[in-house]
């Protein structure tokens, strides 16, 4: 993280970098960052980037990402990078990529879908198109755009 960003490095936690400019807020929503969220959190918007022109960055102290959170972030910020920070150092860096199927990550928006009944079953979507995102529910078979889902 360059000094000119004027945001302190975090000791332990997560940095999500290369988020498409304007999508950082969505990433915070996905991670449940709202009033009352206990961890120190920073959202940097419209940061100049050689690779993508402008980008957003999210930094959260003392937070590790769960698989379903990563999959959900992939929906709004494909190509973002996910850095795990320990003692101010990046100990793991990986690309956030949308998998071919998403299980138990998001609710099917179709109220008539069986996954919204009281059944012991996770929602399951097939990723039909990655950009723009189109997901098909593997139960009710309806096709959804990103706006329908998040």
């Amino acid at each position, binding site marked *: 993280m360059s000094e000119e960003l004027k945001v302190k490095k975090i000791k332990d936690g997560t940095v999500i970098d290369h988020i498409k400019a304007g999508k950082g807020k969505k990433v915070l929503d996905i991670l449940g960052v709202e009033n009352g969220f206990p961890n120190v959190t920073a959202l940097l918007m419209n940061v100049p980037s050689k690779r993508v022109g402008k980008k957003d960055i999210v930094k959260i102290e003392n937070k590790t990402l769960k698989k379903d959170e990563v999959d959900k972030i992939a929906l709004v910020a494909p190509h973002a990078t996910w850095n795990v920070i320990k003692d101010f150092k990046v100990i793991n860096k990986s690309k956030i990529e949308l998998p071919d199927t998403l299980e138990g990550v998001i609710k099917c928006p*179709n109220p*008539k*879908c*069986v*996954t919204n*009944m*009281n*059944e*012991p*079953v996770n929602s399951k979507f097939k990723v039909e198109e990655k950009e723009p995102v189109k997901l098909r*529910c*593997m*139960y*009710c*078979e*309806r*096709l959804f755009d990103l706006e329908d889902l998040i």
Partner: protein
Amino acid sequence: MSLKGKDIVSIRDLSKEEIELIHKKAEEMEPYAKGEKPCKLMEGKILGTLFFEPSTRTRLSFTSAMQRLGGNVMGFEGVNVTSVAKGESLTDTIKTVERYCDLIVIRHPMEGAARLAANVSTKPVINGGDGGNQHPTQTLLDLYTIKKMKGKIKGLNVTLLGDLKYARTMRSLATALAMFDANLTLVSPKGLEMSKDILGEIEKNFNIKPRQIYDIETGVKDADVIYICRIQKERFEDKFEAEKIQKAFRITPEVLKSCKEEVAILHPLPKVTEIDPRVDDMRCAKYFDQTFYGVPIRMAIIGLVSGVIK
């Protein structure tokens, strides 16, 4: 190719070759379906029919198909007399019923219910209609009927007429007809057009672009087959407007004057007012023959997924 153990949940799960196999076997089943020959292929086997909502044709034709194959049928229609009324989950119902039978047919108002049942059951599951989603055996019998009436599907002008937005029959049939290279004309009132998702899927997978027409005379003029379904009044806020539209999209002897002489009219039934009763006795009315084909098609499916027909 074998369909043994396969679930028949969605037309999307079936390849063209698998559909052709089902049709070939249905043809072989016809004499048995008519009761001209006895058949014991499913002797000692039980079909569970779980109809969580009412059905006449689908349930009875599955029952007839299983009995014509020499097998037995058990099941229910409606949920008032079952444990579902006590709040039992579909998952638990399936886990129970699969222990009583060799294969299951399910009709359920929730979309995706048949997929859930298929994932839970170790026995083959056949979807008899899941809400507004899929009714694959109807699509298979519709295609079969067209093939029987016209000798082929490829290159035929097929007009789908009515509520193309909500009718599940129309959506799956459009996809299946595109798979078999039919020329599709879609005739519907404004607001009840086929969804862009289905049209996009058809274009992407089969490189076919159906034409959309809003008046019945133009839409049926060149048709070899007209497949009509009901336009429900509930789709419109204004009941007067609904009646006007129902009248405008009705098949009558007068409308048929502008059609090809050999046109075949199909309907998934039940029909209400969308076909003039005078049409029933005309040569072009094929919808009651269509209901018969539900029996050999379902015999073929039962036999194939059970492995007694190869």
